[in-house]
């Protein structure tokens, strides 16, 4: 099975405290640690496991700048066979539809049976996979937490729905799936693995390579635009307990007793 996995380089929220810049037009990016979007990492692991079972090839693709090459390499160290970087100044400021248009053009340059994305990235929009599927006229399933290959024509997939329940669907290939965290246990990537792929050539394609007009992608093509970042006016919020740890614990124990937290 030929599998394409779309990945994104994002600030790692487990490693960073996100704060809004003083100008309000961005988050503070000075000291941010970046990594591959957590959901995408699960998607790559799933692709590798599928290929381990039924054979095939995994390609990882990112829309981004030169620094996105490092996450493509990381995912190749995990076991993806090929990387592809989609890079062009004309892509800057793309909305979800713009990003999906870029990826659609890249899909057209290859031949893939299955396309995976993460269920969402740092902006929480959860949109690119579904848009890409509709543009390609492929069937789509989101929030996938189980993939079983039935044959070379169809898959059985589980979707995570409300209440911890799982919705089982049969879906025809080629298709697009957005992968939910927890579907597998992504393998660890060591320094040695990274070194092995350090010199592998990663092809780069821009707007003209992909046959994309500048008005269909980037800020020019975007109907959805971010105006600013801000910290919302908060409500009263929690009463913060202050003092030494001992004092805080004493206050907390009194509260727990009063509220029925200690029996």
């Amino acid at each position, binding site marked *: 099975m030929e599998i394409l996995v779309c990945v994104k380089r994002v600030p790692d929220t487990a490693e960073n405290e996100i704060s809004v810049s003083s100008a309000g037009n961005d988050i503070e990016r000075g000291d941010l640690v970046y990594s591959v979007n957590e959901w995408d990492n699960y998607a790559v692991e799933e692709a590798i496991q599928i290929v381990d079972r039924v054979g095939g090839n995994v390609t990882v693709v990112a829309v981004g700048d030169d620094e996105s090459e490092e996450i493509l390499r990381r995912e190749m160290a995990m076991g993806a066979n090929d990387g592809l970087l989609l890079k062009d100044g004309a892509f800057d400021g793309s909305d979800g*539809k713009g990003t999906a248009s870029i990826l659609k053009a890249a899909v057209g340059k290859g031949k893939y049976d299955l396309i995976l994305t993460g269920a969402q990235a740092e902006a929480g929009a*959860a949109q690119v996979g579904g848009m890409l599927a509709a543009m390609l006229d492929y069937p789509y399933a989101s*929030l996938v937490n189980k993939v079983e290959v039935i044959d070379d024509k169809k898959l059985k997939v589980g979707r995570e729905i409300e209440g911890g329940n799982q919705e089982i669907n049969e879906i025809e290939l080629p298709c697009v799936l957005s992968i939910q965290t927890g579907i597998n246990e992504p393998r660890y990537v060591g320094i040695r693995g990274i070194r092995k792929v350090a010199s592998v050539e990663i092809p780069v394609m821009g707007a003209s390579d992909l046959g994309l007009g500048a008005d269909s992608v980037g800020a020019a093509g975007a109907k959805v635009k971010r*105006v*600013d970042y801000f910290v919302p006016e908060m409500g009263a919020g929690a009463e913060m307990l202050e003092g030494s740890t001992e004092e805080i614990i004493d206050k907390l124990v009194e509260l727990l007793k009063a509220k029925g*937290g200690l029996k």
Partner: protein
Amino acid sequence: MAQVFAYITHKGGAADDSALELAAAAKKLGADAVTAVVTGTGGELDAVCKDMAASYKEVWKIDNAAMAYPNAEVVRKALVNVLPGDCLLLLPHDTFGIDLGPGLSIKMNSAYVSDVVAIDGLEGATLKVVRQEFGGAASTHMTVDTGAGAVVTLRPGSFAADESKSAGGQVVDKSGDAGDLTAKRKYLETVAAEVGDVDITKSDVLVSVGRGIEDQDNLQIVFDLAEAMKADVSCSRPIVDAKWLEKSRQVGTSGLTVKPKVYMAMGISGAFQHVGGIKGNPFIIAINKNPKAPIFQVADVGIEANILEFIPELTEKIKSL
């Protein structure tokens, strides 16, 4: 202005809570008449449509056996055929809306904006909304060009439901316009969540642990505290994703909904998916080393501390009582 529609999700003949939240959100668009659109089949669909006519001036019913289960790939085709191309369509940002919305916006050639938490308003064709990024750590204003229509998904619980039920609306049968509903994805069955050894939905006191625990081996201190308090242990999503605890202990929209009297959130940042699983207005105590963690906005009492150091000291104190 363009016509505004609200898609009603329902189950077992009853509309989802989001149905009246969408009605409230639609008012913020300045729409004087909002149309509910409901898909499904048979008596359950009729019951929901009748119910919605109390809250929406017009209810478009699309009855087709192919939509007995709400398969987004099928529903999308029906909506593309029935709705005017330049309409504004509101959907809940739940597991169905996430499945349906992005592809629908492409097929309708509409703009798409998802997980909206507030609507500032509509000026001309420009819609201004508020979203959150980075798990709620930063908010953004977004503008959306709705000139050719828009699909907008709204975060459940962000808009106070419009309970007025004074619309006195009518049901219009649009089933004949649904068109060809064949799809390349087929719903097979729903597998119910596994039941664990502890039923956290029945617990009075929950000690809930999140990413702040850092390592599986550290979980013991949480179980020690829970034992001292005679409480049960629950957790947030990352702990289940890491396979450190079973899914039946996960609190949140993708896990279980709990209604304890006291909820202790330990090293949990407080993403809306987690908080959405805490009901019944419990007394919430949040302990987190990041003073900006969103959990402090919903907690009654907060403590800025590293749970790895704080929990053992609290356990000792409780044991000594």
